[in-house]
């Protein structure tokens, strides 16, 4: 571990965005203090460190806060450039591709999944399903393009896009139990399906991903709560 570096991560165990930060720290072999936040009773430290959004994750390095998961992951890579794996590629064009796909995951993939599971009308959910199918197809192509036949988006070793997509793995696994859907269907997106297995099995990754049954429990509680609210609202 880098000497006298003070690294603290404010997070919530089920958050895919927090998981991204954990994955980056783990892949680079960095030690840090993890603080679990109660999002219904946010700490002074969280509110002070992220006054604009009041959200997790927040990485606090030597007392200075960094917010937004993609910003945090790039920061970890740059501030600890000599340590462990390099997450962003060294070639500027490949870096541009990595940033493009990371943005795609947040701008297109995630919203389409949210629409599929939480769309308020059946029409919206169906739209979400269509958009999700397009999004994963595009990502399958991205994996082919970026990996060039190697195991990860980053090539021989996991990199930026692996981490950004990897943050979603807990929920990807939970999705099968919750909705009977595997977002990375081996029949439709074989490369992504294989990637999910391979990335998830990494020594630096496996212990960090939240347990699927706990995620399923949380999701079921949320669903029940939303259903109760909807029922109450219609009375």
């Amino acid at each position: 571990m880098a000497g006298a570096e003070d690294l603290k991560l404010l997070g919530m165990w089920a958050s895919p965005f927090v998981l991204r930060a954990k994955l980056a720290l783990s892949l680079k072999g960095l030690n840090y203090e993890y603080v679990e936040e109660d999002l219904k009773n946010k700490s002074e430290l969280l509110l002070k460190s992220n006054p604009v959004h009041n959200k997790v994750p927040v990485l606090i390095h030597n007392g200075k806060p960094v917010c937004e998961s993609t910003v945090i992951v790039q920061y970890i890579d740059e501030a600890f450039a000599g340590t462990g794996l390099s997450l962003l590629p060294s070639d500027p064009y490949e870096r541009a591709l990595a940033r493009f796909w990371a943005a795609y995951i947040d701008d297109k993939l995630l919203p389409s999944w949210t629409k599929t599971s939480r769309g308020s009308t059946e029409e919206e959910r169906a739209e979400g399903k269509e958009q999700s199918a397009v999004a994963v197809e595009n990502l399958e192509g991205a994996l082919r393009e970026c990996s060039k036949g190697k195991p990860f988006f980053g090539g021989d070793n996991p990199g930026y896009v692996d981490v950004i997509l990897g943050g979603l793995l807990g929920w990807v696994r939970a999705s099968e139990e919750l909705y009977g859907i595997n977002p990375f269907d081996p029949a439709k997106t074989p490369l992504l399906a294989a990637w999910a297995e391979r990335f998830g099995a990494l020594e630096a990754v496996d212990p960090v991903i939240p347990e699927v049954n706990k995620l399923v429990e949380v999701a079921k509680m949320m669903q029940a709560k939303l259903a109760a609210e909807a029922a109450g609202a219609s009375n």
Partner: protein
Amino acid sequence: MAAKEELKLLGVDVSPFAIRAHMAVVIKGVSCEYVVEDLSNKSELLLSSNPVYKKVPVLIHNGKPICESLVIVQYVDEIFSGDGVPSILPTDPYERAIARFWAAYVDDKFFPVLRGIVLALTEQERVEKATETLAAIEPLEEAFAMCSKGKAFFSGDSIGYVDLALGSLLVWIEAIRRMYNIEIISASKTPRLSAWAERFGESAAAKEVLPEVDKAVQFGKMLEAAASAAAASK
């Protein structure tokens, strides 16, 4: 610039995203062929260079396409660097993180509500979006003080990443003022940004790239019409 560098930028004058990419190239002082796209009749080159989004801007460097405005800006910053070449992002990792944070804020929080003012279907919705936009600009007014540390731009002495992210929207902010009499940036409510906006507009790169506000007003009217038509046909 290296002898065989070929740079082509596909864009549209009024697109804030194209403006960012175009200004980045101008700031770097590199020559670039600027191709104006007709969005109602997109070129083969655009469609094949950006198959995922089919949108502008696209930078094509020695035949290889780069898409998404902030990705393009970072790419241009990294490819064209060195002695005497202005930097768009800072070198310090923490300052880079702050710059990326605020650029993301502009795109995720500010731009959607700003655009909502133009796309609003009712007066009530427009007022709502305007209120949200006025709220969304406040953290940027504070951020300017923190980032600029008394200097002219978010980045310091010269235009940088956050300046481009927000500055590219100034034409639309002014267009909105003319169209709806809604002032997002004003000397009374956002004095720092107001002064910064003037400096931004006076810069050589802005003068070369920014379109006339009336062009944005015209485009805005088209967007309004398209939005009502889409709503009416539902």
